[in-house]
């Protein structure tokens, strides 16, 4: 035994702290630059606003240190950096003064809410496997949240997409939270159904086709996502959910046939929707021919302004506070990517994209490292949904796909998005902790089967 030295995994919490300090430097430096560009001096509220962000993330860091010591050290600093850059951009756009009130303080407040939610999640959820008990609760919650905007009087249409609900003074994108609920449901459902989904079925042209009854859930989720596309008029949400489901189906069953079937179903459905519904046709026309004169005056104005903004930024950008991103409608939410492109240039956008890539890659690595199937599917699912969401939003702004109403995780203005993405960070921290911590010496099966370990 003396020869077998087991490598003691290190917690890497100090690495996280160092990286966090770097993230603070990026965010606070940018904040100071905006102040200098807009008012000529370093902003007076640097201490309070900057301090707010620092204290919040440090709190999450301390909680991680105590309750999830083996968590991946890169996730929190990246989320902090992207959130910080987004806050600075929103603060900078407040100087344009389009809304009569400042958005940055609200965004900071929602950041606080999101981080607190992540802290609560880490404190209460000792083992992510406990979540698998709520598979069908999550399904119900997810579907309700997804379809909530269709309820008359509650839902509201913004920029053509009906993905918002309004309760009193608050507006909310329930789809953002549905993302997490549905990831839990998909993971829970697929981990139990994977055997029947992957092992039986006829083989045609090298593809193992599933049985008719096993295809039911796929068809159901296809129908729901098309319903979202047609009735909520949002390609992004629709693509996000269906893509998430198909990806997890593939991960669970390891069968390419699901991807082929899923993609054909989606493409077919989208083409049918395009031929039947004029609002889908308009979206496609804006995507393909934004410079058509009749579109330019109204429907493609935002997209084209975004392109102009990014073009004027060029390689290095105009510098924070030096461009005119205020010309783009929703430059702080749907088009924050174009705003950043204008002022930080191609260089800045590459940096932001690389941050996202790193974050998603850490998520997928956690999925590979975690030991249980449910955890793999859950963390793989939320990571992939982040990737899909970034793709759908940035792809929409840069004309890879038609424009949608989704927002960039952490970066864009919007409470629902921010809170749900910090919950995902909490989830990633929690699951990466169990992926990286040394396997418990005694009977791990017994531990996993003790449900009272999971806090209520």
């Amino acid at each position, binding site marked *: 035994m003396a020869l077998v030295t087991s490598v003691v995994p290190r917690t890497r919490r100090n690495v996280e702290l160092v990286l966090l300090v770097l993230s603070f430097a990026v965010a606070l430096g940018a904040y100071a630059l905006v102040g200098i560009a807009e008012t000529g001096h370093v902003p007076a509220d640097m201490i309070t606003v900057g301090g707010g962000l620092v204290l919040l993330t440090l709190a999450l860091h301390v909680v991680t240190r105590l309750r999830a010591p083996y968590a991946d050290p890169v996730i929190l600093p990246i989320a902090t950096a992207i959130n910080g850059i987004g806050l600075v951009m929103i603060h900078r756009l407040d100087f344009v003064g389009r809304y009569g009130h400042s958005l940055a303080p609200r965004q900071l407040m929602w950041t606080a809410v999101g981080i607190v939610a992540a802290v609560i999640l880490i404190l209460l959820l000792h083992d992510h496997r406990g979540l698998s008990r709520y598979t069908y609760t999550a399904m119900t919650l997810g579907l309700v949240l997804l379809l909530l905007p269709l309820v008359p009087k509650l839902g509201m249409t913004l920029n053509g997409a009906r993905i918002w609900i309004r309760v009193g003074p608050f507006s909310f994108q329930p789809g953002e939270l549905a993302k997490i609920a549905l990831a839990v449901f998909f993971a829970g459902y697929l981990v139990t159904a994977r055997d029947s989904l992957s092992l039986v079925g006829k083989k045609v042209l090298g593809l193992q086709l599933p049985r008719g009854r096993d295809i039911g859930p796929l068809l159901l989720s296809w129908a729901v996502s098309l319903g979202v596309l047609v009735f909520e008029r949002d390609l992004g949400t629709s693509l996000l959910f269906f893509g998430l489901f198909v990806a997890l189906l593939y991960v669970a069953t390891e069968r390419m046939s699901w991807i082929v079937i899923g993609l054909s179903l989606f493409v077919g459905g989208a083409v049918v929707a395009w031929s039947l519904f004029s609002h889908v046709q308009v979206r496609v026309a804006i995507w393909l021919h934004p410079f058509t004169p009749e579109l330019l005056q109204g429907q493609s104005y935002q997209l084209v302004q975004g392109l102009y903004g*990014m*073009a*004027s*930024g060029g390689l290095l950008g105009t510098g924070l506070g030096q461009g005119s991103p205020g*010309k783009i409608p929703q430059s702080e939410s749907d088009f924050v990517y174009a705003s950043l*492109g204008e002022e930080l240039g191609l260089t800045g956008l*590459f940096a932001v994209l690389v941050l*996202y890539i790193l974050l998603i*890659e850490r998520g997928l690595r956690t999925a590979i490292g975690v030991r249980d199937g449910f955890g793999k599917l859950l963390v*793989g699912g939320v990571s992939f949904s982040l990737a899909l969401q970034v793709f759908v939003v940035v792809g929409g702004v840069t004309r890879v796909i038609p424009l949608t109403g989704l927002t960039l995780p952490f970066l864009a203005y919007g409470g629902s998005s921010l809170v749900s993405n910090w919950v995902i960070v909490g989830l990633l921290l929690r699951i990466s902790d169990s992926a990286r911590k040394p396997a418990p010496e005694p009977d791990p099966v017994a531990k996993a089967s003790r449900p009272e370990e999971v806090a209520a």
Partner: protein
Amino acid sequence: MNAPLRRLGVVVAMLFSMLLASTTYIQFVQADNLNSRPGNSRALEKEYGRERGPILVGGQPVVDSVKVDDDYGYQRRYRRGPEYAAVTGYYSLVYGASAMEGAADSYLSGTADQLFYRRLADLFTGRQPQGASVSLTISAKAQKAAWDALGDQRGAVVAIEPKSGKILAMVSKPSYDPNLLASHDRAKVAAAWETLTADAERPLENRAIASRLYPPGSVFKLVTAAAALSSGEYTAESQLPGPAKLKLPESTTTLPNDFSGACSRTGKVSLADALRISCNTAFGALGMTLGTEAVLSQAEDFGFDHALEIPLQVTPSSFPVDPSQAQLAQSAIGQFDVRVTPLQVAMIAAAIANGGTLMKPNLVDTINGANLDVIHREKPQKLSEPLSEDAAAALTAMMVGVVENGTGKKAQISGVSVAGKTGTAQQGEGDPPHAWFTAFAPADDPQIAIAVVVEDGGRLGTRASGGAVAAPIAKAVMQAVLRT
């Protein structure tokens, strides 16, 4: 489940590659194209946000940029708007830039390649980038004299320094106020534009170098005379037939003189006298004898049919292609299809004045950076040698005769020998003619060569002639230059 998760990672990498590519495409590959799209106000504002360099005449700005408190940062100001409009042009948010504002745009806006290192320095020092200033060759006195002398008549005046090709004056009337088009109020600009473009008198066109070209009338006789002298077969004393009417071959029409009767009692006239009294029949006959080839190549040596940038675009003047003998006779006296710009006529005078060597006309003197260092200094360039020194001297003497004792007496300046030629270009039966005058002075050491055209007879209407209407204007401008 790890293998598919890894493949999912590859899918994510592919998705992000597409985003990196699309972002690069927009911000790098397509950026210039997007920035120059007509509807892109952002690029304009960026351009306006930089202080555009001034346009100077004699060290004083005729156009400069003043700081204003709006989206654009700077407002273009034209201090002597209409007087200089033909030279400066306008710089408009809506309609772009014209004339010098357009031709020297890369310098004025500071984007020229020569300004690269300056921009680089500005980038690092955080200094607000500034455009370069463009100094013109225009003489403020000549410009003012031309503007005033033309008065409310339609037409154009161009004056050149023969030795260098520097353009001393360039006026086109009717003019417009570029300030109206440079306003930042798009609605006002559009309204002004509507008015100007709808105006039947075409105030936006620069009659001196572009616009619709004019028939030159008798000033073209200088080209025919130059062709005759260049052929070596003619001198100032060569005798030409000068009847009252010239019978044209293969045609029922005849070519009459502008005055009644023959060009002399004998019916014969010397080349010098023919030019002095502007004898149509003698020059018509001379043209036919010389042939199309000789007259055309002489005209081309003077600049006909050649594109020219001063750096404003000049419309090439033209001589008819393959005329019949009758048409050639009419072309030789500047009628039929001969069409010229006033600048072209001034170039003919300038070449004769400069001993037969034509210098390239040019409006830009120097270009200076924001800190006054010279970025570019325009050197005089030879354009062509349309006639020999001897021929030029002979033609000069003949032109002095025109002013001393011929059709151009109204251009006489006491104490200065002036060489000139009148033109009265017929447009059609009963229509008032265009009145022309071209000249240079002093004849022995030319400081200025000038061409004046007054449309439709100016104040005199159908009774107009080049000598009566255009010569006094040329005289006023020459005096303004020579009095220094």
